[in-house]
């Protein structure tokens, strides 16, 4: 059949072209089940309270390893539910605890800041989770929490879930420019 070698060549060519287009997908689709044996040791950069040595909080350069990983975000969503985060943050809408889907970040919106908030806990009720969850889980939570206000790449944000509609899913939340990144003056602390 005359066409055969050519069509094969064509498929290969097309394949290469498309793979260039989709190369970004790799990271998003990775599914890590258990990363290198997790340690429950608190991360170096986390802060135990709002009281800082020195005037301002120095953000460390630690990045969210799952920043653009859809699967981690949805696992975070699962944890958010099963760890009953909604008890205080009601689906990110806020209640006893602050809202998570708005642009107001009392303790900062950077991944490491959110990690600190979860791992170390914060004054006025936020428990420290570092004794309960391992780093991987906390990072997954970080990814999900940041997705709530559109701080992670669109393609990685969770879409709607099979529950009653309470708010538009992260995949449809507009990116919001986070306000007050860092530790608030004691007066403004909740």
């Amino acid at each position, binding site marked *: *059949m*005359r*066409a*055969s070698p*050519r*069509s*094969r060549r*064509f*498929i290969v060519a*097309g*394949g290469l072209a*498309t*793979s260039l*287009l*989709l*190369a970004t*997908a*790799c990271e*998003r*689709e*990775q*599914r890590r*089940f258990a990363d290198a044996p997790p340690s429950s040791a608190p991360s170096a950069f986390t802060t135990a309270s709002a009281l800082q040595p020195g005037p301002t909080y120095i953000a460390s350069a630690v990045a969210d390893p799952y920043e653009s990983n*859809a*699967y981690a*975000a*949805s696992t975070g969503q699962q944890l958010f539910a099963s760890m009953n985060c909604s008890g205080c943050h009601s689906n990110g809408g806020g209640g006893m605890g602050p809202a998570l889907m708005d642009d107001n970040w009392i303790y900062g919106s950077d991944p490491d800041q959110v990690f600190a908030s979860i791992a170390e806990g914060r004054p006025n009720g936020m428990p420290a989770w570092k004794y309960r969850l391992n780093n991987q889980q906390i990072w997954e939570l970080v990814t999900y929490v940041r997705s709530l206000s559109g701080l992670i790449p*669109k*393609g*990685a944000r*969770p*879409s*709607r*879930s*099979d*529950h*009653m*509609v309470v708010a*538009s*899913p992260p*995949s*449809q939340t507009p990116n919001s420019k986070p306000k007050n990144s860092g530790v608030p003056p004691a007066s403004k602390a909740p």
Partner: protein
Amino acid sequence: MSAEHSGEHDALIPAPQPPLPARATLPDDLLASEHEHLDALWSDGRGFWAWVTTVNHKSIAKRYIVTAFLMFIAGGLEAGAMRLQLSHPDAGVMGPDRYNQIFTTHGTTMMFLFAVPMMTAMGLYFVPLLVGARNVAFPRLNAFGYWCYLVGVVFLYVSLALNMAPDAGWFSYVPLSGPQYSPGHRIDVWAQLVTFTEIAGLIGAINIIATTFKLRAPGMSLNRIPIFVWSELVVSFMIVFALPAVALGSTFMLGMDRTVSTQFFNPAEGGDALLWQHIFWFFGHPEVYIIFLPGMGMITEIVEVFSRRRVFGYTAIVLANITTGFFAFGLWVHHMFATPIPELGQSLFTAASMVIAIPTAVQIFCWIATLWTGRPRFTTALLFILGFFFTFINGGITGVMLASVAFDKQVHDTFFVVAHLHYVLLGGAVTPLFAAFYFWFPKVTGRMLSERLGKWNFWLFIIGVNVTFFPMHLLGLDGMPRRVYTYLRETGWGPLNALVSAGAVIIVTSVIVFLVNVAISYRRGALAGDNPWGSYGLEWATASPPANYNFLYPVVVRSRHPLWETAVELPVLTGLSTERREVLVTTTVDARPDHRHDDPTASIWPLALALCMAVLWIGSIFSPYVVLWALLISTPVLIMWSRQAMRVTTTERVQRPNGEMVEMAQA
């Protein structure tokens, strides 16, 4: 039988211009010059540009067939990987994540990228030849269909390479495939890929229907259509009614649930998980017959030729095809017997699922009767048909057993079903397909496939299929569910699985033998000549491989077996233009010459449009707004596409609905 030979149509054919002495034949030098002329006129040229612009149904169908066969091999390799992982308990060849992608890709490939396209492609190549046409009805649409299909192929396999392949099964049941339980874009890939290939399939179907209805050789009335064409016709109608279901379900429901948060399948907001199963199987069950009926058509052709007699019960077989086509839409619920569906409804579907066995049985009986009173020639093609009887009927019987609600609830979603469906599809579709390859390869390439390698190919295949799939029945009964990436040693499924995996190796060997056979015969096979099998069909009334124009002149048909029942001389009609690509359009029922149609020339726009569609479908996964951009860029393409047909060429003979004939050059 009498109507078959009547010359009732002659009166309807205009007299020769100028009148010829009775029984005169066209002089060879005229034929030679006409051949030169038409071959050049119908040629789309050579080289890459010609390759991407051609609208010749043979070139397109050929690459369709090749691509589909590559997909058969790809799907086979995936099957091999799965068998490696399952060959022994607790194997560590691959993890669940990879395994799920692979079995999903296997199913998706075999159903959407191999079986249906392959059967459509066989139709697109042979239907025009069998009905004596020069091309399909819509050549550029035909090219567009292929390019859509190719984009789908590339899309799926690039995704697989990117660890982004769908992983919720070829049936993508919600909610597992929904936004919550399948994050990322894997299922979006599946949903859009399905739509792609469905579009290709629908286009192929429309082409085959229009070709069969309007481009038949003069005198080939409906009761003289070759049975393979009948089955392709029935299948095309089934495609038109079955494929929209899954295309809508995947793109407009599943896809939109995932991308823009529609609630079709969210039980908390009034959605319904069973709705997807209904939609999917309303397509999914006819799909099986869409794959299998063309195989039946091929068998009839081959049985007829190699038993050297006219098939017994032409009408019965045609009616059986049509009945199957209708019944196929009334069975889908037997895929859902384990779901909470009213019992009475289930019984009705049981009855339907069993009754549909009857038309198939009728066809099988007719073939046996034909062989019995014929003088069979044991070519590889016929051997594969005998293999069909052996394997397919096995699958048919288990199919009837599965139609029983009570029994189905035991083996549903187990390896018993895997065994059944592979017996049906490999036995009922792939075996006839191999037979058809051996039968028609000479026509396509002008060379014969080696019969000796063919025998090897056949025996390895039949043995392989049975060694691989028979033990699966037992595994299913012993409780091995489908779609498991591993199993515990305690289950005791190990030995049989090892046997199954061994069988898979035999099948692979058989396919390799076939490929070797093709590779060798394509270059060094014995020359075939016009009609190596002494067959009766119009496809054998032209050169092998056929010239660009297929037929020098429209052949006049007066019976069901033109080449068996005409004398040496072949009656033809002259008078089609030699200045442009003209095809003869005939009336739908009794194929009277109706008018001359100007066929389009080579065009790049089908490819361009397919690429625009690719941007649309693939882009919409990442952002709904891409749709608008894609529409924007496809507008100029569509304009260019239609401009091509809007050229003033020569004076046309326009016939108004009231019959008045007007000569006009431009509107």
